[in-house]
């Protein structure tokens, strides 16, 4: 589904990602872990098409297409969704209105009719129950005045309504209390399918107890320094990240 090859990314004058390689197949869940500032969000945003990052080398293919040639809205329409680490407020625009416009844009791309008002309402209701989200939140303006946890939950609610093929969760777990975490994880798990892939960016092994990844990758200073199974997450939780740093440094020294 997704293949990233030797991806180099700059923000401003600074290179942040120094050659990332990653392959994600449909049905898989990949977790990306790594210390603050290692470039996790940068990678997530580049996948979603943020143009403030400059890709200086490398390729990304998504379903056989050159993703870097595709505008962000078209990526969304082709089934890519990123849950933001810092969801953005859009004052005065109701959540439902926003979601309906998004859903219709995606449906249009697929050659489908605009969603019928009643069907939309039912869909929203169903997903609201799935994520135990309050109706009041849904009718309020997008993220305006939402608490940190509410914003995160709203991202997953959007994900559930839009049903993307590739979902990227950027630290959705930070800021969620333990009950909310379970609800969100349950929501994500119920969306898991053989046609859908997830990239779960996180600092904590905790969420991976609920959303069990097939692969764990460690991003350190703009490079994937280690990949493994879910065991790796547990190991990281115990030892932290610094030993990986030493490992790469010593590996470089040996070379």
């Amino acid at each position, binding site marked *: 589904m997704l293949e990233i090859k030797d991806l180099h990314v700059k923000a401003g004058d600074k290179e942040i990602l120094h050659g990332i390689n990653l392959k994600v197949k449909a049905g898989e869940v990949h977790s990306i872990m790594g210390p603050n500032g290692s470039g996790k969000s940068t990678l997530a945003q580049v996948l979603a098409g943020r143009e403030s990052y400059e890709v200086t080398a490398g390729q990304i293919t998504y379903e056989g297409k050159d993703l870097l040639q595709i505008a962000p809205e078209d990526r*969304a329409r082709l089934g890519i969704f990123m849950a933001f680490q810092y969801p953005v407020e859009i*004052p005065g625009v109701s959540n439902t209105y926003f*979601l309906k416009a998004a859903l219709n844009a995606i449906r249009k791309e697929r050659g489908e009719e605009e969603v019928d008002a009643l069907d939309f309402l039912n869909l929203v209701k169903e997903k609201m129950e799935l994520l135990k989200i309050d109706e009041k939140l849904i009718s309020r303006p*997008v993220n305006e005045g939402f608490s940190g946890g509410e914003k995160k939950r709203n991202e997953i609610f959007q994900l559930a309504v839009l049903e993307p093929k590739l979902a990227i969760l950027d630290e959705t777990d930070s800021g969620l209390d333990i009950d909310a975490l379970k609800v969100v994880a349950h929501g994500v798990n119920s969306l898991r399918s053989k046609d859908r892939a997830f990239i779960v960016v996180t600092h904590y092994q905790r969420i991976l107890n609920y959303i069990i990844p097939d692969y764990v990758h460690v991003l350190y200073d703009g490079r994937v320094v280690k990949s493994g199974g879910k065991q790796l997450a547990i190991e990281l939780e115990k030892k932290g990240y610094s030993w990986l740093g030493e490992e790469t440094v010593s590996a470089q020294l040996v070379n």
Partner: protein
Amino acid sequence: MPTETKQIQDLASQEYKYGFYTDIEADSIPAGLNEDVIALISAKKNEPEFMLEWRLKAYRHWLTMKEPKWPNVHYPPIDYQGIVYYSAPKKKDSPKSLDEVDPELLETYRKLGIPLGEQELLAGVAVDAVFDSVSVATTFKEKLAELGIIFCSFSEAVGDHPELVKQYLGSVVPYTDNFFASLNSAVFSDGSFCYIPEGVRCPMELSTYFRINAKNTGQFERTLIIAEKGSYVSYLEGCTAPMRDENQLHAAVVELIAHDDAQIKYSTIQNWYPGDDEGKGGIYNFVTKRGKCLGRNSKISWTQVETGSAITWKYPSCILLGDNSIGEFYSVALTKKRQQADTGTKMIHIGKNTRSTVISKGISAGHGQNTYRGLIKISKSATGARNYTQCDSMLIGDQCGAHTFPYIEIKNSTAQMEHEASTSKIGEDQMFYCQSRGLSAEDAVSMIVNGFCKKVFKELPMEFAVEADRLLSVNLEGSVG
């Protein structure tokens, strides 16, 4: 951001869709202004003597005045002798019913999306259509008359209800008020008149659509609305004009009078031709609008959505005379291309416990310049007066400007004032958030802007809120390549 810059550059290139011109035979007088011209206008309209006298007083006063230079707008000098002060679609007699209205005119209004046949009308909206200088059709007149409501063109009111006109004309905006109001008083040719008798709640929206068609013609209309004790009326005004290379002057006057417990809600959707990308052509919209809350517990609300005109210059205001009276001003002003707007309100608190609310949303794109200018005046007598002002500006791109000039005069220490102001840019983060959900950049801009204006739109009558929303989106079209 490359896309953002592009959007901004393209924002100017939106087409004006009401720019067509109707080829209709007009009865126009030669350009220029003097006492004879005024007498001619008055004669063409068969006015009683008092009207001509009033016009001439206004004209003589106007001659002593200078064009104001204080607004934050720039334009070349206007040649007042180059303007045609009267132009009317030619007709034998004034039409008795819609069937007698020139089909060409009806077609024009249909193109504008304003059907004048009563059966085609939006249920619950009565329309007065003003073409160049005269009212061409007023709908639902009989139905309203059953309730004692008078809704007709200004000329008809002068003929049929001279006592009301005499009593109220100039009572809120005197002919000496300001340069453009004086000019209007001298030469105004028509407009709408509306009288709601005591205790009557007007059952439908009353609306006037203004259209400037003829070349080099100024439009000087006058609207007078009187709401007697305990009555209610909601009134809407819409405006369009053909695309022309020359600037055209629109200097209107609106006077509202609310007696005890009466309420007037006045909404404007102004979409005059804004001029082209280089700032050539477009309407100069220099308008004086003022309401007087004469009675206790009376209320006047102004809601305006200003998207057109090369230059907009107006301050719909409220004089809060009656105790406990309320004044409100809700405004959205969008400037793009080379448009300039200097708009805001004046709330003059005189009565006790008078309250006012001002919500202004200015949006600037392209090379647009948007100025909010507002005065809150609390007189010595206005014990317990309160005002809330919120004044927000949004910038799209970096070649436009937003300016705020709030003036506050307080002569009574019991006054409570609250003022909030903000300036924001459409953030790259907001744009990206919308786009990452599948919305095109264009839809994202229009959604963010509409959200920004929500507080004002919700004050508009339902049908028109939808129209305003659409108008804003259309005006922001071309914001992305």
